[in-house]
């Protein structure tokens, strides 16, 4: 087993463990902090796949923006921070079954894919990945349409939030 695989296994265990803690932690703030650890694990996985751009974007967006806003919202609701009720309801076994089925199905599907067993191909030397990604995002032959649609969607959301927050005179 190479160092690479050991690091991957540790990351995977930490990520999954943190993800389980997200749903089982008593305090909402603890859940949010465990979520941050799980998202960090995903960022490390990206780093292991030699995708530095996705690593930092994962941290900037999911940890720097989304999680912090979630913690902010949770902290504002003081009463629900310590929930004393039971952590699960009667339907817990159904959720467990479904998630196992989903995981099994995905794993089965991936195992039939030809790329599943092959080793990671080495990236060509001297290629600026970030530049390649940027070009792909605005190139008409690649992803310019999804990129523009996403931009318009975000713009609409921005304008919408301004309209919602607008103070009527």
């Amino acid at each position, binding site marked *: 087993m190479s160092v690479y695989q050991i690091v991957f296994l540790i990351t995977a265990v930490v990520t999954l463990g943190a993800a389980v803690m997200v749903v089982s932690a008593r305090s909402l*703030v603890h859940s949010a902090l465990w979520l941050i650890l799980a998202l960090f694990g995903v960022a490390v996985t990206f780093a292991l796949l030699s995708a*530095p751009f996705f690593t*930092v974007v994962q*941290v*900037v967006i999911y*940890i720097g*923006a989304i999680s912090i806003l979630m913690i*902010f919202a949770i902290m504002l609701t003081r009463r629900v921070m310590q929930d004393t009720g039971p952590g699960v309801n009667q339907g817990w076994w159904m959720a467990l079954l479904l998630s196992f089925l989903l995981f099994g199905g995905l794993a089965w599907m991936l195992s039939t894919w030809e790329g599943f067993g092959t080793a990671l191909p080495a990236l060509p030397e001297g290629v600026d990945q970030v530049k390649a990604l940027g070009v792909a995002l605005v190139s008409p032959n690649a992803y310019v349409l999804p990129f523009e649609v996403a931009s318009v969607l975000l713009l609409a959301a921005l304008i919408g939030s301004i309209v919602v927050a607008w103070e009527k005179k």
Partner: protein
Amino acid sequence: MGDPINLIGDWLRNLMTGWGLPENLATFILTVMGVVVMASFLLILDIALVWLERKVVARFQDRIGPNRLGPFGIIQPFADIIKLLIKEDITPQGADRIIYNIAPLFALATVLMMWAVIPFAPTILGADVNVAVLYIVATGAVGTLGVIMAGWASNNKYALLGAFRTVAQMVSYEVPMVIALLIPVLLARSMGLQAIVDAQQPWFILVAPLAAAIFLVTSIAELGRAPFDINEAESEIVAGFHIEYTGMKFGLFYAGELLHALTVSALVATLFLGGWRGPFVDQVPILGVFYLFVKAFLIYYVIMWIRYSFPRLRIDQMLGFSWKFLTPLALVLLILTAILDKAMEGATPLVYTLVMLGMNILLVWATVQVLRTYARVERRRVAERRPVATATEADFKELIGQE
């Protein structure tokens, strides 16, 4: 001979491979050693920063500052450290013990992490990642998490208020900061800090002075230093997020804040002041470290100067400053820089710099004009008689329903 760091590194590598260690294990050990040396160097520098900060603030406030221990009070920070270490370590009742204790580590460790990508010299740098600028933004965001954790876990209303204020401040100031960071990236055609330093002929402060100013201001806001220190405003929320921390745990926050200020200074120096660039640096790379720190301490002095000269802003003023002033300005600047950069493809560096500088000056002039108009309107609005003050006695009686 001009690069002792790599010389020692190569010597150690040869020594270890000579002992029969595999090549990649030697690399791993050298990397760990590099991290330890770098972190120790910065933390020792941090002790000097405590002394510098206390001495400079004293001068700004027309005092002498520490002068009892050693010449110019130079031993004072060590006395401070001993005091912090022997203080009672208190965890408040009802605090979330684990989060409460890891929060100070977060605050200091994230600052140290930023130094991983800052190039010290042409041949001396931690990691030359091609997304260094984004990495800086990401670590800054994680650092804020430490403040939030401290504020929440302390089980103290003032601390929680401090954490709230931090979030509001960070979320709004990150927007102009990232836009301002895009300008050196655009000029250098790369997000790697080494590439940005390489591209600085001339320094980017001449090409994009306004971007440098916006980055400095937003960085000070992210530092949470005066005039943006509402997250620990002593007069309102006592000390905000670190109200409950004692001894060395408080010391870690304090050290983190000082080192963060120096980190921001080093970033400004790297992004806009040419980083390690200076005379003879190509022959003697180690000189680059000296140049970088000279520039960094220059900016550090400016940050202290701002800190001790301006009063604290109110939260609405702060957020308004970010959203209504810095963000639109940064956006306009980015668009103009991008258009001019494309229009001047193939121009000589001199023409390029002069046009960019002219554009920046024009933009500053236009901004000042807009601000003057706004101030005039605002003055008129404030000077108007308010509805309450204009109510006559009869109106007043009618209002409260008496005759």
